[in-house]
């Protein structure tokens, strides 16, 4: 494990999106692939490929064509049969970080701003992935792909990711489902997918896209980022709500409709959670009122405890 290094003073991006308390907590746990992932080089994570590496797996009968160098002569001495030793190949993974940059993510002030929270989370995940010598890609989207950075494990890639995050300015509304299908088609190797969004889109489309990713063997985690106002709806008096993604406004007394709002939100969250569980997608509800450090640590710890089949 590599100790966390504070960014240089000139590296302001690092200071903005990589908080020491978050990194220091999360780094201890790391981002381990719980499923089998496919990498281009040897790494810490289990690979679907069998070969001749470090981790012995089994013996098998020699068949003509096998390389004679792999015959276990000790075994031949004991049993006078030609057997070959097989080893499990370990590889690295590619973590695909998808950040929702639609206008709805702009809600919230300061640290509780959903987009800022998402950026912070994305940066932290990218750092953790790259720091353990895996590859991380970043995709920023709204109704389409706004910016995509390919997977890379180079330390300098972190700077690229941070820059991309910093430059992100929400403009459009969300359309998550089609993009997830697009991603599933584009990424051939199985890896980790981190979707960071408020999911203010059609749940069926989102879940369909997630299912597609899972079908392709990716380990998928949905970070559902919500502002505390959206969870608790604590408004009073006469309020005019202006839609952030679409044109439209509503003048109402929030306290009068709060019960109905809470009911609709709960149903939405339940649909999302149930859908994710159904497709074995990790569902993590991130309330921006909660500091990212503990929230991320809790997720990573849980991830360690539960190994995916």
């Amino acid at each position, binding site marked *: 494990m590599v100790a966390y290094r504070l960014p240089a003073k000139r590296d302001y991006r690092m200071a903005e999106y990589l908080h020491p308390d978050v990194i220091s907590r999360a780094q201890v746990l790391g981002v381990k692939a719980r499923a089998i992932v496919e990498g281009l080089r040897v790494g810490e994570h289990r690979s679907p490929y069998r070969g001749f590496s470090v981790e012995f797996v089994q013996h098998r009968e020699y068949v003509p064509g096998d390389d004679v160098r792999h015959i276990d002569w000790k075994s031949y001495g004991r049993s006078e049969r030609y057997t070959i030793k097989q080893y499990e190949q370990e590889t690295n993974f590619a973590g695909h970080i998808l950040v929702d940059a639609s*206008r*709805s*993510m*702009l*809600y919230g002030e300061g640290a509780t701003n*959903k987009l800022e929270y998402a950026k912070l989370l994305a940066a932290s995940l990218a750092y953790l992935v790259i720091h353990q010598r895996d590859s991380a890609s970043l995709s920023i989207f709204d109704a389409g792909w706004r910016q995509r950075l390919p997977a890379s494990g180079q330390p300098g890639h972190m700077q690229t990711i941070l820059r991309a995050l910093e430059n992100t300015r929400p403009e459009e509304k969300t359309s998550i489902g089609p993009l997830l299908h697009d991603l599933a088609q584009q990424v051939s190797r199985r890896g980790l997918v981190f979707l960071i969004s*408020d999911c*203010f889109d059609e749940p069926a489309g989102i879940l369909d896209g997630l299912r597609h990713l899972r079908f392709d063997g990716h380990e998928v985690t949905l970070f559902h980022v919500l*502002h505390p106002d*959206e969870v608790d709806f604590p*408004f009073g*008096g*006469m*309020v*005019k*709500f*202006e*839609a*952030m*993604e*679409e044109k*439209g*406004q*509503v*003048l*109402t*007394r929030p*306290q*009068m*409709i*709060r*019960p*109905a*709002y*809470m*009911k*609709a*939100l709960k149903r*939405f969250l339940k649909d999302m959670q149930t859908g994710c569980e159904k497709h074995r997608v990790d569902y993590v509800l991130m309330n921006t009122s909660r500091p990212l450090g503990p929230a991320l640590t809790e997720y990573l710890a849980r991830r360690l405890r539960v190994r995916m089949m």
Partner: protein
Amino acid sequence: MNLLAPYMLWGAAAAGIPIALHFFFRSRYRTIPWAAMKFLLMSIEQTSRRLRFQELLLLLARVAMLALLALALARPITAVGGGAGRGEAVDAVLLIDTSYSMAAQDGAATRLERARKAAVNVIDQLPPHSTVQIVTCSDRATLAGPRSPSALDQARGIAEETRFDHVASDLLPGLQESAAALQRGQASNREFYLLSDMQKLGWEQQGGAVVQSLKDLKEKATIYMVRCGRSKAKNVAVVGIAPQSGVPRPGERVGFAVLVRNSGSETVKDLKVSLMIDGDAKSRETQALDSIGAGEMRAITLTGKLEKPGLRVLTAQVEIDDLDADNRFDQVINVREHVNVLIVDGAAQPRDPAKSASFFLEHALVPVKDESERLKYYLQVHNVSPRLAVPGRLAKQDLCILVNVPLEDAKRGETVSAEFLEELARFVRQGRGLMIFAGDNVTPDAYNRLLGEKHKLLPLAIKGVKSQPAKQPLAIDRESVSLPAFAKFKEDDRFKGIGFVSISRSLELDERGTRWEKKDDSEKPVVLKKKDEQAKVVLRYNTAMPMVATRKVGSGEVMQFATSADPGWKPKDPNPTWNDWPLAPELMYLPFMDMAVSYLLHGQTQNHNLVAGTKLSWHPQEKDTKAYTLVHPDGRAERLGVPVDVDGKKVVTAKDLRQAGVYRLVAAVPPTGSSAEPTSEQSSQGEGSPNGTPPDEIPLAVVPDLRESEDLEALSDEQIDERLGFRPIHVTAGDSPVTFSEIERLNREWTLWLLLGVLGLALGESLLAWWCGRAR
């Protein structure tokens, strides 16, 4: 609905505050950019209708709350036309029924006592600065006071001292007086209390006007009907005393029929009826009556010895029942030694007296053959011709009879002088009787003009003379008898012969004479409206044409016959030309004439026998200058002063005599002295005063108005409501202090209920707001 504080209604403008706030807060909102618009829209879609309804409901509740609060502070009351709220000054008018049915015992107290107590309670419960006026009413109303309406203590005193009259109940005058008293009030809040036993008579005498008056009162005031008696009264009343002989004479023991009537609703047993003369207990004769049923009238014959001539007072009494007021009946009778009758015969036949017009009449009045007996007979007839009928002839007469007397046309015979007619009119007005018989000498024009229009003696105007065909004579209709004195000719078959009289000729009497029409200088008819001035038809022909009519004139009475007193013999004609009435005893000529004379003589005491409530108008002699004092039954003396000239006649008047009993009219010579000669009546009184009655004391018997006790039935509350067409406030005056008006004022004011409504609305609004805001 009235408002006691209408200016507070301006507060209702505050009802606009919630509406203004509603729009104000709608215009004051903060804008929030919102991401989770989908859920917001979803929840609004689900709740918008309900929210709008709830908002509207809350808004209405708040508006209603403020409007109700303003209305409550304006103090609305239900009563129309001046109801009072609690604590508001009231102009109250108390109309206390003082007819004598209010004297009936009702439990432990009389109805009037209950009314007094209820009146005092009403006064006690009047709010500060209230005023009160007390009106007493029997068949006339009196504003009893107080002089200053705000003097409630004085009003209490007046209420406590209210006495009943022996007068029948008629609510109309009282209601009119009460309306006037209410009109004089200054306060906007008015209350009218009718404290009465609600006897039907009071409501029915002038039913329509009573109802209209109460409807008018309802527009001005809140009406309380305070019932002062619930139980039915057991009552037997003495309703009359009838002498059983023609003319009472001194020294005779005369039988009198005392008429008693049970006007209660149950049979009365062991009733004792007594009769006494001049209040002398020693002369009392008592007779017991086993039982008298409800509604039954019985005549009990009692005798009394009339020792001396003159005006005597008969007093009949029954024992005490629930209503004392009508248990005593007084009557003044004139006991005469002699009755003087002057007959003026306009067709006297000195040579053949049997052909004289007055022949049969004179013999009917003095049915004695022997001349010496005739002189001793109590009825002395003086028969004169018209020429000899001078005014002085009337001086000591009790009755005058004009028989076929021509008034103007000398061709028909001797005429009476104008002076005689002048004196005759005065004679009648002073209380004597006059009988007028028809005949050939009676000319309608002269009679109508002189006896009718000029002297107003003629009961009915004469339209003409009608002769019947020989085969179709007129007959007398027995059933047409209308006066009780002549009832025997209708009811007793022994007198049925009167129906067989054949009348060939008759005057046509104009029945419109009941309303004398006379054209004076202004050519406008003068209508005699007074009931006692109207003529009564005593007897009719079978054609319904009047045959005998009578009319009270002044203190006297005139009886007019449409046919002659004799058959109307004509030379060489053996048949009667007018009628055959005197020719056969079975035709009841004598009994009828006897009864007619008795009726007129008995009627001469009518000035002495009055019904309670009647105004006393006493006509003394023309030259009488004595001062009169009226001594009431309770001994109170009322000075009436010397007689005054009214329409050329001397008259002494007294206010309404409302209490029954024996009054005494005492004449005294003024200190300055007077040369007035005593009248014949005064002389006769002077002759007969067994109990030391001074010569100039004139007894007057005032009896209760028996209409009052004839039917003591009271109207129920429902019947009153039905008559009125609206529902006044009915209460019963009980023994315990009544608090109805206070409670009613409280009930009538809606403030408390409205405030409770405001409270309820506030509670409802809070609950609604909580319910609308709670999480579901």
